[in-house]
């Protein structure tokens, strides 16, 4: 069943359209990748889907969450669905986490808000979540402040926080872009494991085609505010229809070839 659906989503700033006529839908267990370069409008789309656009931006179209239109809804209605029905993790967990609050309390926050858990139950659940995202020594780690953790550990905390209230859709906006390549690989493995276990529907946003292709089953390609291509990952990779998608696939294939000299061995 569809959890999140947007049709004809258009975002304008001072009359300039930044996102034009975007439609997409997500159900539990869906794995959708949204790919595009910087400035293509992919992050704005993500923010709009959670009612988090900066003031001054205007939206039109529909954003249905469990069938209810949330476009232009007051913040108190958005707060009921954020974290509970739809969650998000951002690129840089350091800016998404409160620097002065122990990470355990940050994971516990949404549990208290949405599930009415008392403090000690929520903190116990936070420890369980730290364990689920494979953070070392969870009982001690929940007392740490974000800056005491590594970038990869912080992103694990952000994932625990996003998934703690069992949302049915998770939006991940470039969640590994700020990480080193070996840490990125670990977080991608973790994300794969968590969405499989929890059944949460995934909207994975990235500029990096090989990263998206590894997780998503359906691919959306965005350019200058519009969706220019949509289809199963395999089809888009093998038979990209738009010129832009062809270019993205060709670039990614070239990088893949470079990284695999034992197979191709075509450089000096």
């Amino acid at each position: 069943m569809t959890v999140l659906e947007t049709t004809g989503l258009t975002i304008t700033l001072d009359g300039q359209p930044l996102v034009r006529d975007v439609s997409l839908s997500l159900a539990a267990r869906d794995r959708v990748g949204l790919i595009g370069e910087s400035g293509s409008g992919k992050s704005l789309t993500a923010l709009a889907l959670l009612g988090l656009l900066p003031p001054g931006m205007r939206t039109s179209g529909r954003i249905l969450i469990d069938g209810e239109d949330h476009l232009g809804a007051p913040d108190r209605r958005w707060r009921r669905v954020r974290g509970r029905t739809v969650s998000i993790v951002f690129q840089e967990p350091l800016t998404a986490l409160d620097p002065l609050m122990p990470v355990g309390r940050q994971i516990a926050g949404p549990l208290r808000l949405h599930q009415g858990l008392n403090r000690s139950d929520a903190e116990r659940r936070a420890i369980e979540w730290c364990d689920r995202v494979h953070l070392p020594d969870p009982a001690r780690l929940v007392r740490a402040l974000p800056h005491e953790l590594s970038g990869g550990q912080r992103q694990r905390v952000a994932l625990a926080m996003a998934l703690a209230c069992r949302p049915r859709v998770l939006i991940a906006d470039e969640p590994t872009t700020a990480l080193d390549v070996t840490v990125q690989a670990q977080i991608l493995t973790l994300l794969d494991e968590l969405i499989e276990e929890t059944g949460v529907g995934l909207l994975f946003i990235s500029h990096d085609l090989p990263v998206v292709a590894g997780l998503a089953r359906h691919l959306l390609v965005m350019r200058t505010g519009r969706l220019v291509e949509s289809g199963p990952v395999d089809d888009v990779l093998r038979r990209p229809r738009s010129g832009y998608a062809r270019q993205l696939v060709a670039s990614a294939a070239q990088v893949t070839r470079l990284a695999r000299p034992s197979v191709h061995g075509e450089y000096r």
Partner: protein
Amino acid sequence: MSDPILSGHQLTRWFPGRTHPALDGVDVTVRQGISLGIVGESGAGKSTLLRQLLGVDRPTSGEIRFTGQPLDRIRHRAFRRQVQVVFQDPRSSLNPRMSVASIVAEPLRSLHIGTDRAARAERVAEVLTAVGLRPEDGRRYPHEFSGGQRQRIAIARALAPAPRILLADEPVSALDVSVRLQIIDLLKDLVDRLGLTLVLVSHDLAIVSQLCQEVLVMRHGRVVERGPTVDVLTNPADEYTRALLAAIPQLPLDLEEEP
């Protein structure tokens, strides 16, 4: 084997308040015409090493040599004419208030190259053309250019004094994927055409494999593996190098084998 032009011997660099050195006994040799890649993840010490090779930071112990001479015995201008640098983010490395022509001419002025304004203007037009821009682009300002074009401007500036060595610190990481390949092609072309020796710092082995004949893999301030790029990538001896290779996101293999 060609001669070493720039080398570091047992370089160690401590930063105050740290429990581990950023560089820990690193040896590095840059030979004429043999481009070198320095790879590793954040905190490995690659940028610290690059700053030593650039002569903008001093090692706590150890020595940098240029054409066989210790760096502190060489006149700064003579060194800087031969060794230039390009940084990661062309947004922050170009002065927004200067025209492109004066940005590119800046090293010529500061290094006293070119007899007069006209000679410098000629050189600026030449290097702008070499990086795929037009001489008339010199009249414009950095903000009028895309990220990829700005990186071309930064490369033109580095090339202006006709250096032998170009150091580049993650020169394509801030760029979008398709633009990245264009800048890699440009660097490759410049190395071939101008006989430049490139020293490239990157976390991305795919890019190093494209541009560098030799590679040095760093972790925690030390060199864990070094050798011809093709050997290191096809037959990595070190466990960390293997993990680094395995972590590179790739498209499904079967995809590429279609015509």
